[in-house]
């Protein structure tokens, strides 16, 4: 296809983002639907291999290169963006809608970028948009966390700036080493690839660089969390799969992520924080599969990312609906909501069973690829870790969360649902649930999108039976030991404890320094003015020479400017 007539799927999303301030409330709503819908149409019509090339300073940039792997992720990003826009139908704030659309554009752009410079720009667009969406969580009425969202945003920024610097340094080293800016697979050896890996793993929320995820995502508004849950981590998985397939350390990092995430989720009290830990855990499956590196594993990584975007979105929407209706997402304050929020419960259970790998939902057909790949590649420990993490997932999301939020409370009362859940929210959750069911019941829909040819049948008798055993055994333990899972109003320390206080001290120290600098500037200014007065007194009766007047004036101006800047 000619470059001039090749539409970039990120463009309608960017245009929608830019148009938001110019439109009225209804116009914004329509633009938020049109942007992702047009992106989906563009993705459907673009042939494989379609690209944009731009010459820049002797290099060739490729902001668009349609490959099979990138297309799977871009389709999921655009499709989910459409559903999330339906969910956020009642939101009409221009800034919020604009950043949401730009976030979608960043995700689609990263998935389709063919060169490192374009990828880096879209990558940073993701960071900036996520940051502002987190900061918009200052609005408590919209389900945000109030002023704590500011600190969480700053911590998010700090970690992502670090990750971005690593990515930039890595791509520059790669550029110098290979002479090419094309995004291609590299071996994980040497400084460049390792810096790339660190930058990518920061966004994938690999421990110990993960704490931004459970810290920041739950503090955004209800709609903000729903958008945030889909893009940053999966964009990182997409780039990892393109750049570092088969990198052995990723296998173990991913396996560790699966266990780390579910362990913290089992302890967590806040619904959205619990789900944030599960993003980390599920992304662990994808990172692990990228590390295994076989075609089945890479297909598994892409399929699981696709499925994950929809079922995790559905879960985040369900949690958001509870927060919207009740005013809190703390499990210790919920309970007894089954009657008041029955549709939300049903839809949440579809998401919860999907993430747990219950047949015939999409998590079952996608997770199976990654776990089977570990078996086929003779990785017994990895397979056992992935199975154990699957158990923890069902325990915490499939059983604990719905039980504590919707099940009967000890006092026999029910948490009060103060507001009805808007129909637009329920419609979006229904669409996400339909995607989970459709790709689960008809796995060919999902498998046909995958980058590598494969023959895999998820619905074999032995696979279904062994999955049911795993799930029923977990349910049995839950029934016997659920008393130990009762949530209390506690906060769980994570690695961010190590840097939160020093960071706060640093900010406080910088504030004190700034204050002293302002005082010093004020003193300098006063001294200059006093000197001017003394000089004037000394030359009383005579006019100051012009050069002296100019000197005094310019000194006063500079000092005033410095003081103003400091202030």
């Amino acid at each position, binding site marked *: 296809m000619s470059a001039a007539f090749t539409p970039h799927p990120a463009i309608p999303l960017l245009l929608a983002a830019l148009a938001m301030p110019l439109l009225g409330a209804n116009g914004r709503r329509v633009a938020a639907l049109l942007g992702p819908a047009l992106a989906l149409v563009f993705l459907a019509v673009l042939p494989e291999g379609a690209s944009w090339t731009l010459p820049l300073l002797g290099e060739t940039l490729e902001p668009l290169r349609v490959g099979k792997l990138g297309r799977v992720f871009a389709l999921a990003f655009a499709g989910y963006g459409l559903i999330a826009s339906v969910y956020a139908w009642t939101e009409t704030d221009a800034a919020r809608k604009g950043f949401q659309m730009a976030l979608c554009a960043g995700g689609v752009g990263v998935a389709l970028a063919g060169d490192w410079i374009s990828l880096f720009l879209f990558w940073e667009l993701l960071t900036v948009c996520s940051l502002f969406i987190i900061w918009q969580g200052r609005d*408590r009425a919209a*389900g*945000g*966390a*109030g*002023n*704590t969202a500011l600190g969480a945003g700053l911590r998010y920024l700090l970690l992502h700036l670090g990750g971005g610097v690593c990515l930039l340094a890595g791509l520059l080293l790669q550029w110098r080493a290979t002479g090419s800016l094309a995004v291609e697979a590299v071996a994980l050896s040497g400084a460049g690839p390792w810096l790339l890996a660190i930058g990518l793993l920061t966004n994938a929320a690999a421990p110990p660089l993960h704490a931004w995820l459970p810290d920041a995502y739950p*503090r955004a508004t209800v709609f903000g969390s729903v958008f945030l849950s889909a893009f940053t981590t999966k964009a990182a998985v997409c780039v990892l799969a393109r750049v570092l397939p088969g990198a052995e350390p990723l296998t173990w990092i991913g396996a560790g992520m699966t266990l780390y995430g*579910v*362990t913290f989720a*089992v*302890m967590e009290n*806040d619904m*959205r*924080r619990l789900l944030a830990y599960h993003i980390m855990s599920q992304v662990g499956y994808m990172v692990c599969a990228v590390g295994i590196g076989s075609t089945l594993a890479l297909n598994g990584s892409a399929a699981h990312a696709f499925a994950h975007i929809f079922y995790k979105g559905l879960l985040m929407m369900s949690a958001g609906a509870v*927060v919207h209706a009740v005013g*809190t*997402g*703390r499990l210790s304050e919920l309970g007894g909501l089954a009657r008041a929020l029955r549709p939300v419960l049903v839809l949440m259970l579809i998401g919860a069973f999907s993430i747990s790998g219950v047949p015939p939902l999409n998590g079952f057909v996608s997770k199976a690829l990654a776990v089977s790949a570990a*078996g*086929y590649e*003779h990785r017994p420990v990895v*397979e056992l870790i992935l*199975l*154990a993490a699957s*158990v*923890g997932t069902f*325990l915490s999301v499939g059983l604990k969360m719905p*039980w504590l939020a919707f*099940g*009967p*409370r*000890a006092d026999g009362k029910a948490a009060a649902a103060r507001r009805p859940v808007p129909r637009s929210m329920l419609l979006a959750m229904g669409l996400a649930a339909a995607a989970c069911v459709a790709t689960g019941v008809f796995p060919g829909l999902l498998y046909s999108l995958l980058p590598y040819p494969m023959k895999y049948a998820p619905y*074999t*008798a*032995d696979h*279904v*039976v*062994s*999955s049911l*055993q*795993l799930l*029923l*055994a977990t349910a*049995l*333990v*839950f*029934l*016997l*030991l*659920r*008393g*130990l*899972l009762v949530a*209390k*109003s*506690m*906060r*769980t*320390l994570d690695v961010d404890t190590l840097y939160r206080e020093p960071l706060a001290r640093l900010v406080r120290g910088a504030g004190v320094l700034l204050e002293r600098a302002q005082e010093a500037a004020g003193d300098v200014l006063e001294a200059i003015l006093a000197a001017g007065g003394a000089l004037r007194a000394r030359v009383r009766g005579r006019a100051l020479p012009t050069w002296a007047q100019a000197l005094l004036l310019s000194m006063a101006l500079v000092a005033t400017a410095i003081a103003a800047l400091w202030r």
Partner: protein
Amino acid sequence: MTRAGKPSRKLSPRAFVRRLRDARGKETALFAALLLLALVEWRFAPNAHPAFPWHRIPGYSALIGLLAASAFTVLTWLALKPLLQRPEEDPDEKEGASG
């Protein structure tokens, strides 16, 4: 353990055995279903592509489920919660993550 969300947090081995002994209804049904599935696996649906020796054992998935779920529940309750959980007294946290 009560059914409605506020069971005893004390779990001595004796209490656990008593709970198992007193198990009724759902617990028994689940256990029976697990036995049935292991039987089905043994007779009709053995693992078609056993990669490891334990893939040939009927009911190995149930065993993994029982062990892993117990480990997650007991270890987090016994070791990680006391070690890592604190009252929500930090002002930054007190404002709440979910409104």
